[in-house]
Structure formats: structure tokens, C-alpha cells
């Protein structure tokens, strides 16, 4: 009974959120509705005893990814309702509708046709994890993290701290003007580009020479082929130089 009530409430939360994402006029509201949907899903995961997945759903999806969405929305300044009327790709709304409807029909057909077709089982029974020690998957993961992988785990902690320190230093505003780019930089880059063109031509030539050397018997046929390869490489080099002039 409890299970059915929990499912019904969560399903309602998820569906209202999902409809809200596409119906809201303000992109920020859409992102908030998405969080609502993800939270509802997390509760459904708990009722399926997938506790770790539920935690990940909240921490990663609701916590991190939607926040990134919000960052992008606010950075680009598209948090106005009228921006939604612009269609960057012609016909994208129509195509999205078709794809969504097709997916829906496909899912309904799969469920109605044979509900056991996907996994071969209508529902999973029994807890996830090792029944003998009454372990659940959260504990299994925790044990793996703090025994076999504890070194990598602690190193990751250091890594995140360093990333924060570095981000603060880089984001901190500096006083004074930007330094000018040295005058010769552009010339250096141009010379660099020309050198790359030359190196490519010479590399082709060297490969041809290596291929000629690799020839087992060193017959006249192989050497003539190598000679013609050399010619093409020379031509390319000449072309490259001609292009520069």
C-alpha cells in the first residue's frame, strides 16, 4: 500500500515537472522544473532500493548538471520569455515534436505488446547486492572506495582542492593593463607555419625512402617505384614553396 502511494505521488511530481520544463515561458523556470523531475526520480530509485543511484541522481543531476544549465542560461542572458520564440534551426520544433511522439508510441507499443520483452522479467525481486551479509550497494561502493581504491580516492580529494585554489587565483582580477603581444610573435608564427609545410613534404619523402628500404629484394621495380615517389614528394615541396612565393 505504502509502495503504491509513494509511486503515485512521485509519478505525479515527475510528470508535473516534465510538463513544466516544456511549458514554462521562462528558461530559468524550466530548469527548476527539471530539478523537480529529477528529485521525483530519485525517490522512485529509493523505492526500488537503488540507494546509490538515488544519491547520484540528486548530487550529480539535480545538483551539478542543472546548475550548469542555469549558469549557461544566465551567462548567455537568454532568461527572457521572448527569446523562446526564436527558432535557431528552421523546423526544429516540428522535428522535436515528431521525435518525441515517435518515442512515446514506441514505448507504449513495447509495454503493451509484451511487457517482459526487454529484460525477460516483469519485475526484479530481491535486494541488490550480497544477500548473505545483508550488504546493499551503498555499502559495497563505500567499502571499495575506502579499501582497494582509498589511495586514488584521497588523491582525488587533493585534486579538487587544488582545482579550487587555482580557479580562485585565475579568476581574481588583476590590476593594470594587459601586456602587449610582442611584435615579432606574428612573424614567428608565420615562419612556423611555413616550416610545418616543409616538414610535411620532407616527411613524405622520408616515408617513401623508408618504404623503398623496406623492399625485401631491392629489385629494379621497387627502386623505380621509390624514385617516382621521390618525384611526387619533390613536386609537393616545390608546390609548397611556390605557394609561399
Amino acid at each position, binding site marked *: 500500500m505504502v509502495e503504491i502511494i509513494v509511486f503515485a505521488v512521485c509519478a505525479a511530481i515527475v510528470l508535473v515537472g516534465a510538463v513544466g520544463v516544456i511549458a514554462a515561458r521562462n528558461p530559468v523556470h524550466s530548469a527548476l522544473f527539471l530539478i523537480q523531475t529529477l528529485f521525483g526520480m530519485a525517490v522512485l530509485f529509493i523505492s526500488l532500493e537503488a540507494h546509490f543511484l538515488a544519491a547520484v541522481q540528486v548530487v550529480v543531476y539535480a545538483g551539478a548538471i542543472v546548475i550548469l544549465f542555469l549558469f549557461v542560461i544566465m551567462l548567455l542572458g537568454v532568461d527572457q520569455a521572448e527569446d523562446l520564440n526564436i527558432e535557431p534551426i528552421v523546423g526544429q520544433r516540428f522535428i522535436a515534436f515528431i521525435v518525441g511522439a515517435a518515442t512515446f508510441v514506441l514505448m507504449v507499443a513495447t509495454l503493451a505488446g509484451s511487457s517482459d520483452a526487454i529484460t525477460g522479467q516483469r519485475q526484479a525481486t530481491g535486494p541488490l547486492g550480497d544477500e548473505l551479509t545483508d*550488504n546493499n550497494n551503498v555499502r559495497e561502493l563505500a567499502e571499495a572506495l575506502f579499501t582497494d581504491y582509498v*589511495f586514488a580516492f584521497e588523491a582525488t580529494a587533493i585534486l579538487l582542492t587544488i582545482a579550487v585554489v587555482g580557479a580562485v587565483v585565475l579568476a581574481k582580477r588583476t590590476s593594470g593593463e594587459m601586456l602587449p603581444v610582442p611584435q615579432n610573435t606574428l612573424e614567428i608564427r608565420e615562419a612556423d607555419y611555413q*616550416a610545418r609545410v616543409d616538414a610535411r613534404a620532407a616527411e613524405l619523402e622520408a616515408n617513401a625512402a623508408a618504404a623503398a628500404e623496406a623492399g625485401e629484394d631491392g629489385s629494379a621495380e621497387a627502386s623505380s617505384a621509390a624514385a617516382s615517389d621521390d618525384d611526387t614528394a619533390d613536386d609537393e615541396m616545390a608546390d609548397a614553396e611556390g605557394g609561399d612565393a
Partner: protein
Amino acid sequence: MDFSAALPVADVVAFNRPAIDWHAASPELILLGFGALLTLVDVIFLDRAKQYTAALAGIGLLVTMVPILTLANDMSETGPRVMFDGAYVIDEFSLIMKAIFILSGYVVILLSTNYIAEGDYWESEYYGLMLSAILGMVVMASSRDLISIFVAFELLSIPSYMLATWKKRSLESNEAGLKYYLMGVFASAIMLYGMSLLFGASGETILTKVNASLSSDPLTGESLSSSTPVLTLAVIFVIVGFAFKVSAAPFHNWAPDTYSGAPIPVTAFLAVASKIAGFVALVQLVFVGFYARADVFQPLMWILAAASMIIGNLIALRQTDIVRLMAYSGVAQAGFILAPLAVAGDVGDQALASIVSYLAIYAAMNLGAFAVILAAARKTGSTSIESMNGLFSYAPGLAVAMTIFMFALAGIPPLGGWFAKFQIFFAVVEQGGTWAIILGVLLAVNSVIALYYYASVARRIWADQAPDGDLTPIRIPPSLGAALVLTVVATLVFGFLPGAVSQFTDVGLIAGG
């Protein structure tokens, strides 16, 4: 439905504490402690602590050498120390590489001391990030499973991205950092994809077990004569990810722009320590993780080595900026170091020993060259090759040092580089196959090409006139002088007494755990 499982459980299941060998982990812990101390000192004392941060970082690195030496001393009795089911191994190879990382890190700190203090930089965070990057490298040298390798790779990369953009007011430095970051993240993603394929196919993260599953069918236990496509793809992706790090062609495009835009000590750090860390990871993967799949990694390494040597050397010929010259020469050097991996499946021990001694010598001579560039730029304020003209007429000491480093990099006896190049060449030719001989020929030809541009720098130093006839001597601060003396001595000792380096680098095959 049972909600009780989600609540705290009353019956406490015994937690099997993993066995941690604190002696083996002490180098990492000391480095971490000093890194944290630097950050705290900065927060508490603010500007008053600035003058001590460089010294504190240097002391931290020297203290870290103590447990490495004691571990090396114990190695003959205890043998390799293995932790976490083989994920973390302390053996001869890892100790030697850790020592190389820490000593080259120390030289970089000596180079940074005045450069960072006199410039427009954030000081204590700089040294904190430098120590944490070195920590990542030290961890890398012991990592023998995919997860540890990836975390170590990120731990050494992320501080490097930020250090490359440390000259915050220079657009070039910003570009250097951004380019390095984007290419680095791209490489990480490719590598991670390869690792996930490896894990998916083998169900293991420990390198020795990955190797076992690469060599035999997981279901039937029969040995596989050739690899399945998905594993081939996985091996290639992982190797390509590290090829970015070591700037092997054709994945070298970030290197010249990053090197020339970053502050010079950071460039030295990227060109030496960071690159060696990439090679350490490659060596561990090839010799422990993929050793059964020589049919996949050998041709790949052959291509990477040949392309890096040819492209790096030919482009270096045309450079007008000494830092970009060093960047392309670094690409070519990467080709040299990759060459033994192309025959590693057949001449394992010899290939490994030759790579380790090359890395040790490469660190000394390359850091030295950057030290001279840094010292010369103190006067000229430029890194163009022309600014080196006539260096002998006003800074004879620097001129002699630069000549030593250039000829060492070119591999002229009796300086350090010749022994390194000789060993690489010997290992490659030893294998004796047609492709190995071709690679040997390419090594020889490229040594000659490289000699041309290294020698032309030396010619400018000795024969040309100083620009504008300005003969005021260069004032070299003590820390920079110490770095120069250290690197010159190391380059000369490695060259005159090759036994000194081969005695340490003659490591057996890496312990898998």
C-alpha cells in the same frame, strides 16, 4: 518495500582496514604536507611570508628525498612493496623516477625563485601548485592500475594548466594556458574512453590483470594470438592520450605555443618533468598492462617515434625563437624516447633500461638549457635566437654552459646525451628486424639533423657579435647559479661516467604487484 535499509543500520559490520605501508607512502605524504603548509602560511601571514615560500618549497622537496633514499636502501632486503592489491607498487623503477621528478622539481624551483619574485605573479600559490603537480608525478611513478594512473595524470595536469597561464596580464600566457588546457582535456577524454573499454572488456583495473585478460580469452582461457578489435582500439586510445602529454607528433601542436607563452620556469617544468611523467605512464602501461599485445603497441609506437623525430627536427630547423626551438627539439627527443617502445616486446629489459637512462640525462641537459635561456633573458628580455648572439663576449660562463647543453642534446661524446642516444640506438638495433633497422636508420639521420640546429645556436654564441655591442655582464642570482652548476655537473658526470647512471637505471622489468 523495506525502508530500513536506507537508514543507519544498527549491526556494525566489521570494516577491513586496508593495510597501508606508511614508509612506502611517506614521500607522497611529506609532499602533500608541504603543499598544504605553503597554502596555510600564505593565508595566515599574507605578504610577510612571500620571501620564504620558495625556500620552503625547496626544503619540502629535499625532505621528500629522505624517505626515497631509505626506501631504496631497504629495497635489497624487502623487495618491491605492494599496496592495495597491486594498485600501488614501490619498486626500483618507481623510486628512480620519483627521484628524477623531485630533483628536476627542485631545479625548477631554483629557476623560479627570482623570476617569480621579480615578476607580476602570485607567489605562494605558484609553489603550492608546483608541489602538487610534482606530487601527481610521484604518485604516477608507483601507480599500477588504471584508476590510480588516471587520477595521478589529472593531479599533475591540472596544476600545469594553471601554471602555464600564470603570467596573467600577458595575452600570450593566457593563450598558452587555454590551449594546453583544451588539448589536455581532449587527451584525457580519449584516454578515459580507452580505459573504460579496457575495463569493460577485462573487468579489471589492475594492470597485471588487464594484461592477463588481454593475452587470453576470458571465457575459455585460451591464449589469443591476436587482439580483438575493441581491445586494439582501447590500447590505441590510451596510448594516444599519453602521446599528447609527451608531445609526440602528430599530437604536438599545443607544445610550441604553450611553451613560448608560459613563464620560462613553467616551460622548463612542462618540457622536462611533465613530459617525463607522460613517459613513465607509457612505460608502465606498455611493460605491465599491454605487454601481451606487442602486435598492437609496437607498430603504433613505431609510427609515433618516426613521425615525432622527423616532424620535430625538420620544423626546429626553421625556428627563430629559442623557446620554440626547444619545443620542437623536445618533440624530436620524444621520438627518440618512444623508439625503444617500438621494440619493447622483444628486448624488454634493454628497452626499459635505455628509456630510464635517457629520461635521467634528458632532465639534466634540458633543464640546464632552460636555465641558460632564463639567465640570458634577464638581460636581453627576449627569447629570440638572435638575442643569444655573442653571449660569449659578455657572459663566458653562460656561453660555455649553453654549449655543453646544446652538444649534450645533440648527442656529442663525451657529454651526457651521447650515452643516452647510444643506448636507445643499441636497444633498437638489437631487435634486428627490418622495421627496427629502418627505425635505427631514422634515429641516426635525425641525430645529424638535430646537430645542425643545436650547433647553430652554439655558433651564434661564440662567433657572432652581441646585438648593439652591449657588453654589460649578466648578474646571475645565487639560486639560478646553483641550478646551472647542478645541471652542468650532472650533464658532464653522465657523459664521462656513464656507469654512474646505468648503475641506477639498470632496473629489471617493472614489478606488476
